[in-house]
Structures are given as structure tokens and as C-alpha cells.
């Protein structure tokens, strides 16, 4: 197995494209190394992206935030500006694994691992995040919800590497939240995850919203019907009920070792309601 530490994104992309065997990007490694340990993958090439300057930092830009692909979830939690603007996104990243995992794992890795249960992904989808992808020839930008195509598969082509994830500029009176259900208080994979991001008008009526769910379908879901249920409301009980109904209707989960169809479907509605309430309170500045 070869191990390379390129210093630019393009170099990384070229290395991966040039590899005839199995090539993997190594960011935090918290998923990849587990798969290697279990011999589910046996890479011929690992491209460690942690020495690429463009991937190493969180930047606050006029257009929003740019989070480098090699930035750990812990670093996101330590960035007060990011945390203040996108508390739900940061919470979702900070729910991934233990402190030990937090210091290594990245949201780009969480996305590219393409698990239906990835914690950061519903929060990113709700936030309207975009992914900056670098290929050997060209760069492109793609909406985060377009990346995962199925369990373990993405729309990225061979040689394409995620360089950064961007979050849009936040209008005033905006808030987001992410909640997940796990049997234990820590260290579990989400049985259900729900992310909500919303913006209020001056009368505290929800002007726009995005709702996303995790672990209830082959891919994390954007649920426009759920957003519609609460837009134009002050999140009254009726709106919340419609939100839950829309979320439950969007669920297409499986029975597995982590949960049942019935349980996931019901709890998706509950968590979406709670996340919406949290996001709403945050948008009000509370």
C-alpha cells in the first residue's frame, strides 16, 4: 500500500486518478481505517489530504463559511463564529463519535463515507451547504444533497476530491438545529437524525425553511413537504403536526440492528418537531 501527502488539491486528484488499484482519500480516517481493519477495503493507495493548505482551515467569507475538507469536527466546535452562525451544523459534527473521534473526523469524510445515517449530512442539507469538488481537470460545485447516491456510493467521479464545504451567508433571524436518536447517550450511529434550518421575518413568521432527515432512507433526505408545512407559520401546534406527518411520510427506512421501520418513522417526526422548535428559538435569538 502506498501513502502520499500531496500539498495541493489538484495533486491529490491526479494521484487518485492515476492509481490503477483502489485509491482512497485519507482525511480523519475514522471510517476508512475501520473498514481497513475489518478488511472490507484493501487500498493500494492512500492520499492523505491533511497537508493541503486549502483544506486545513475554516474561513469566514462574504458569501458565508468555507470549511476545508481536512478540518476536524473538534476544530469546528472550537470556531466560535461558525458555532454562533450555524449551531446546528456544528452540533451535528460534534455528535460524531467520542472526543477521540472528534479530533480526527471531518464533515467532508462524513459525507463521502455516504452512510445513510451520517450525522453531519442532514444538518448540512438543511443548511443548504455546497461542496467544492476538485478533479484532475476541473473544479465544480455541487449541492450537498446531490453527493450521496446510495449507501456507500456518491456522485463523485474517480479522481474527484472534496476540497471544502461551504455554508451560505446567513440572513438575520435565522437558526438551525440537528437532533438524532441513539440508544446510548454517546458513541452510537444515528437511528434517526433530523436537521432543520429556518429564517423568520420581522413578525417571527417562518419565511423559509429546509428540513432534512437521516437514517430513514437509503440516503439522507431533503424533505421539502416538511419545510412547506412550517413556512408561513409561527410553528404552532398544527404546523408542527403537519411537519411530523410530512417527515413520517418521507421515511423509507429498513429494519436493521439499529432500529425498526416503525420506530424510525415515528421518531423522525418527533425529532423533526424538536429540531424545528430549537431552530425557531435560535432564530428568535433565544
Amino acid at each position: 500500500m502506498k501513502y502520499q501527502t500531496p500539498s495541493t488539491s489538484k495533486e491529490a486528484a491526479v494521484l487518485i486518478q492515476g492509481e490503477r488499484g483502489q485509491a482512497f482519500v485519507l482525511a480523519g480516517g475514522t471510517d476508512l481505517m475501520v473498514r481497513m481493519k475489518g478488511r472490507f477495503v484493501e487500498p493500494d493507495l492512500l492520499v492523505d489530504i491533511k497537508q493541503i493548505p486549502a483544506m486545513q482551515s475554516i474561513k469566514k467569507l462574504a458569501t458565508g463559511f468555507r470549511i476545508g475538507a481536512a478540518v476536524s469536527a473538534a476544530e469546528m466546535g472550537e470556531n466560535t463564529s461558525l458555532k454562533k452562525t450555524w449551531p446546528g451544523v456544528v452540533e451535528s459534527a460534534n455528535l460524531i463519535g467520542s472526543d477521540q473521534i472528534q479530533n480526527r473526523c471531518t464533515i467532508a469524510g462524513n459525507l463521502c463515507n455516504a452512510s445513510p445515517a451520517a450525522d453531519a449530512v442532514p444538518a448540512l442539507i438543511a443548511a443548504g451547504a455546497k461542496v467544492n469538488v476538485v478533479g484532475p481537470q476541473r473544479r465544480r460545485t455541487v449541492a450537498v444533497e446531490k453527493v450521496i447516491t446510495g449507501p456507500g456510493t456518491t456522485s463523485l467521479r474517480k479522481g474527484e476530491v472534496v476540497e471544502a464545504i461551504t455554508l451560505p451567508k446567513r440572513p438575520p433571524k435565522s437558526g438551525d438545529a440537528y437532533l438524532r436518536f441513539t440508544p446510548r447517550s454517546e458513541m452510537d450511529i444515528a437511528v434517526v437524525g433530523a436537521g432543520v434550518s429556518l429564517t423568520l421575518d420581522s413578525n417571527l413568521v417562518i419565511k423559509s425553511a429546509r428540513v432534512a432527515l437521516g437514517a430513514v432512507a437509503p440516503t439522507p433526505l431533503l424533505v421539502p413537504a416538511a419545510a412547506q408545512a412550517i413556512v408561513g407559520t409561527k410553528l404552532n401546534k398544527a404546523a408542527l403536526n403537519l411537519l411530523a406527518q410530512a417527515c413520517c411520510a418521507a421515511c423509507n427506512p429498513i429494519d436493521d440492528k439499529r432500529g425498526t421501520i416503525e420506530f424510525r418513522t415515528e421518531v423522525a417526526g418527533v425529532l423533526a418537531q424538536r429540531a424545528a422548535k430549537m431552530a425557531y428559538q435560535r432564530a428568535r435569538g433565544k
Partner: protein
Amino acid sequence: MADDPKFKNRKFKAVGTRPPRPDGLDKVTGRAKYGADTFAPGQLVALVLRSPHAHAQIKRIDTSKAEKLKGVKAVITSKDLPDVTNGDRDLYDTLENCLARDRALYDGHAVAAVAAIDELTARKALKLIRVTYKVLPHVTDVDAAMKPGAPIVQPRVYTRGVSPKPKSPSNVAKVSEFGHGDVEAGFKAADVVVEKSYKTEQTHQGYIEPHACLASVGPDGHGELWVTTQGHFVYRNTCAALLGMDVAKLKVTASEIGGGFGGKTHVWMEPIALALSRKANRPVKLEMTRDEVFRSTGPTSSTSIDVKIGVKKNGTITAASAELRYQDGAFPGIWAMLGAMTAYACYDLKNVKTIGYDVLVNRPKVAAYRAPSAPMAAFAVESTINEVAAKIGMDPVDFRIKNAAKEGTKSSYGPTYGPIGIGPTLAAVKKHPHMRGKLGKNQGRGMACGFWFNFGGETCTDLNIGVDGTVTLTVGTVDVGGARASLSLIAAEELGIPYERVKCNIADTGSLGHNHMTDGSRGTFSSGMSTIFAARHAIEELCQRAANTWEIPVKDVVWHEGNAIAKGKKHKQLQPLSLGDLAAGSENTGGPIAGHSQIVADGAGVSFASHICDIEVDPETSATKVVRYTVIQDAGKAIHPDYVEGQFQGGAAQGIGWALNEEYIYGDDGRLQNPGFLDYRIPVCSDLPFIDTQILEIPNPNHPYGIRGVGETSIVPPLAAIGNALSDITGVRMTHVPMSPPRIRKAIKEKQA
């Protein structure tokens, strides 16, 4: 006198204090050496090839390509472990479990093994071994395995415990019936009869240290084994028997042990390491991965239990019965039998009957797990006890107190109890502030009782006095949780010297007589008793040396608080001789001074506990959180209270994990789906509250210090305590463990529907 095991109600100086443990520094600095922490010159790395099938005939194993790979030094299959068990069924089962012979009996069953110069090469070699399987139908559920037409797991197993002897093989390996009186008459006399059925899923001990060993055997038949185990003497005997070695020529050293809880009482892969080493004539290191630990070592049974209890309106139980079906994995065990013996042990019953069915399935061979089989039976019985109490409108604690066993009660498994602690633990529950504590929103409270037998067994101990008067205590029971501190306290107590003057070592098998394992809560009970006797023998010798020094008859010498004292007025000019004085002069009074003890430590005292639990349940998601937990248990005598509390807390935590989230999940293909700590969910730090403890001391009359043993009972009550707390808050009786959020949710909805 020296070997008198009777309790004498003595006053203690050292025993009952909390000094630092002697192995503490090594363990906080990373110096302590566990199973995987030792290396030998020229050692090879071994890996095991395991069956991916739940049940399959092994038609052919072709190892030729693997053998030819450069760097591979040995490849073995069952052909390299010939059957030398002389018809001993248990040994043969162990042999077959270590390395499959004609059939793979469960997902993870070892099929072949390699030893190579490094892990990379060993891994390549494993891939080159070709096994031709014919997949057979399998069964993993205990109830399914008992149904007619179920795939037969072991064609050589005919049901034992029934007459006449059956004519065809069966998955029911053993039927065990216990009890007394006439239950049918008892149920007729009852005002209320409650019948309930329960299921519990399979759990694993979940010790953090995977199995690991370093084996070294030469063509001359001599060998050494360094291994993490609860009983290196037992491992030695088993391994020697399976490999056809002389017991004396196999020296086994117990490493520090990273948790066992029963899982390291059986050999799993050590014979493979020894066989590889013998074939390669090189030392061989074999470590299991966590995946292998879950798939290929011995978890506890999954069960299916029916309980029936009849009661008078005044709260007297008139009859109680239970049918307990426990799976043993692919090899016969005694697990349902233990369930049947323990189920009603807490109660004083005129009419009681339990029947245990030990059932074979295509899962790993079941092993002991802390008070093996008792938690599941207690879950079923203690849940039903609450239901019965509710039916007659009686407080569940009062109901238990009314029916609790006491001294003179004929136990449900046979013998009459001596002084026991169930009544006192229940009285302590009544008085405990936890029972009066205010419950928060969405919180419920439950309590339950538990029983475990405890036992002793073969024990051998040396006590050697150094020239400076310090004492080396050499024991043969592995220290799993602080026993060296406790045993040093006992030696210090008996000799009348400070704790700091004693050093306790665990001997290898070449340095001490045979010792049974550290299991059955026997470590401190048995080695404690043996240490007392070894110390008393040393005192006899010390008195003789004092007599020699003083040139007086030994009958005039007594030992008192670390000194030899000459009795009587005629010797009043003789100053006491301390242990240090006598040690310094030993060269000229007869040479080295030592005490020795070789005993069967029988007469272990039965153990009871009562637990109280508060749980919070999210009304919308059924997420659970244990918010307060109290353990009350009879220790007999707490030698080192810190480590007694530690056992109480650890057992409770394991029981809480079992109750709420831990379970083996098998797919339809018969393969284990969650062989890792991510999805086999043992409690993490943020899942648990502080676990309060109350130690009761009802002395065991058969131990000089009154010790009963404390390791196991604490895992027995939590399943039912949590079930009862859940029932308190949700109004639903949970009958399937683990009581995970999806199961609670489902039960609540079914009740609402």
C-alpha cells in the same frame, strides 16, 4: 487450629481498611503486562481462519498454497489436533470448539490457523487456504431449536435427564428439574395465579481485553504459555490434555487480565497457539480481534422463560413454577440447569418446581458470565413477583419481605439455608433514602432481588518470610479486580504486621500446587481462607523458632500482634521477638521460615442482593436513562471495601447494559450482525449515574473471617429492577430483554391499541 474454617467473630485491624493496591502503580503507568504485552525472540504471528457459515459440512481444506507462501512457518487444521480426549465428552467438545472437525457449527467457528513471520504474511496465507463447505440448515433461536424438525446441531447429543433414554438425537441436551412440594395443589389453593412468558437476548461479558497468548512448545514436549485467563492451572490441564502433553512440562503464566467475568474460564484458542508453536518450533503469538471475541468466544445464553406464581390475598405465595429454555450454543452446557436452580432461590416456598432445558443452537459455545444464568431467571421471576404484588394490591417490597427465604428455609434447589442475607437486604431497601427520594418528571422506580451460590474449591498458597521480616504471599488464583490487595490485608491481619510488609504474587503453574480458577466469586473467599491457613502454619513455625531462640518449650510461646511472646511468669524476663527479629535470626534457628496451605475451600456462603433503580423514559421516543441506582448486598465480610463496592458497581453496570441495550443480533443467514463495540452497546460513562452501594455483613459461618464472595450477585437484579421501574412509569410490563427503545415503544403502542 490452623485449618479451622469456622467463623469466630474476631475484631479486625487490617481487614476492612482501604490501602492502595499493590499493582496500582504498574497499571497507571502502562507497565502492567497483559495477554498481548509480551514478546519472545523469534516469535511468529498467528491468525485463525473462521467459518462464515452458521452450519456447514467441511468437505475439504486445502492448505497447500498457504504452506508454500514464503514466511509461513506452520498451518494447522483439526488433523493437527488429534483426538486424545479418551472419550471425555467435555474435553472433546472443547477440542471441537477450538478447531472445527467435520462440521462448522457457528459463524466464527475456527477452521484452520497459520503462523507466519508477520501479520501481513499470515493474512495472505489465510486467503490462500481453500475450504470447501457444504452449507447445512441452521437454527439460532432457542425456541425454534426445540421444535420438531429443527436442524440437529449435534447428532451425537441425546437428551440427558429424561428416562427412558431417548432413541434419537435432540437439540435438547439436558432436562433438569428442581423443587419440592406439590405445585398443582399449591396453585389450586391460590387466590390469584399469574402466568407470564419472557425472552432475553444473548449478551457477552464484554471484557475490554481480547484473548491473547504467547505459546512456545518444543519438539521435546516442554512448553510455556503466557496467557490472559481466569485460571492458568485449569488452562494448563486442558491444553496439556488436548495436545497430549505432560501436565508438568507445560508451564502456564497468567498475564494481568483485562477483564473476564467468566469469559476467560474456558480455553478458546490457546490450544491452537500451542499446536502452531509445536509444528513451527517457534514461539507463536495469537491475539483475537474484537470481532473474533464476539463471534468465537463464549457469550451467555439467550433464553425463553415461562413463570407461574400463585398467591393468597394475604400475600403468601402458595406455589411457584417456571420452565426455562436456555441455549448453550453448539455444545451442551449446564446453563438452563443453573437458571432452574437460581430462579426462586430468594423465596421461602412450600411448593416450587422449575424445569430447565439446555438447548443447542448454531451459535458460539456458551460460557459463564458473572452469576451465569441467574440474571435471566431473576428477570422473569422478579418481574412476575411485581405483577403478583400489584394484583393483590400489596407493596412489592413488603410482598418480597413476607415471602423471603431465611435461615432454616428449604431452598428451591434443595438444601436448607444457614444464615443468609436476603431478609436484611430487603429491610435495608425499606429503610434506604432512595426509596423515599422524589421522582422527577417521566421517572419511575423499581427494585428487584438476586441470588448467587458462590463456591470455593481447590486452592494452594505459599507464604514466605524474607530475612528482613517482609512477607511474600504466593497465590494461584488470578487477580481480576484487586484481590492482591485483599489477600495482602488478610496475611497482614493474621500475622499482625502492617499491610505494607506483605507482597502478594500470582504464581505460575510451575511454582505452586493446583488452583481452581478465579470464578464463582471464589478468589478472595478461597485464597483468603488458604492465606489464613498458610499464615497460621507460618506462625506455628515462628513460635517454634522463638522457642528455639529462647530454649523453652514451644507450648510456652504464643503469637500476638506480630510478636512471639513467652507465656507465664517464669519467662517474664524474655522480651517479645518480632517477626523481623525471628526472620533475621532464622538462619540459625532452622533456616527459611514459610507457611503453606493446600485446601479445598468448601462451604462458600450463598449471596443475596437487592437493587433499587430510578429510570427516566422519554414519552415520545422511549429513550431511557437510569438516573439513580442503589446496590445493597451481603458481602459476608468486606476485606477491602473499595473493591467490594467496585464489584457491586461493576455488576450493576453490566446488568444495566444487558437490560437496556446489549444483545447479539443474528441475521437470517445465521451470522452475527454486530460483532463490535459500536453496535454491541455496552454502557458508556455518560449513560450511567453514580451507583450507590450499601455493604451488609452477615458472616459466612464456614469462613474464618466470614467471607462469602461478592463478585457475581450484583449482575442478577438489574434486569428486573429496570423492568419494574419501566413498568412503574409506562404502565407496561416489558417481557423482552434488552428493553431497548424500539421494544418499549412497541409495547406501549400494543397496550394502547
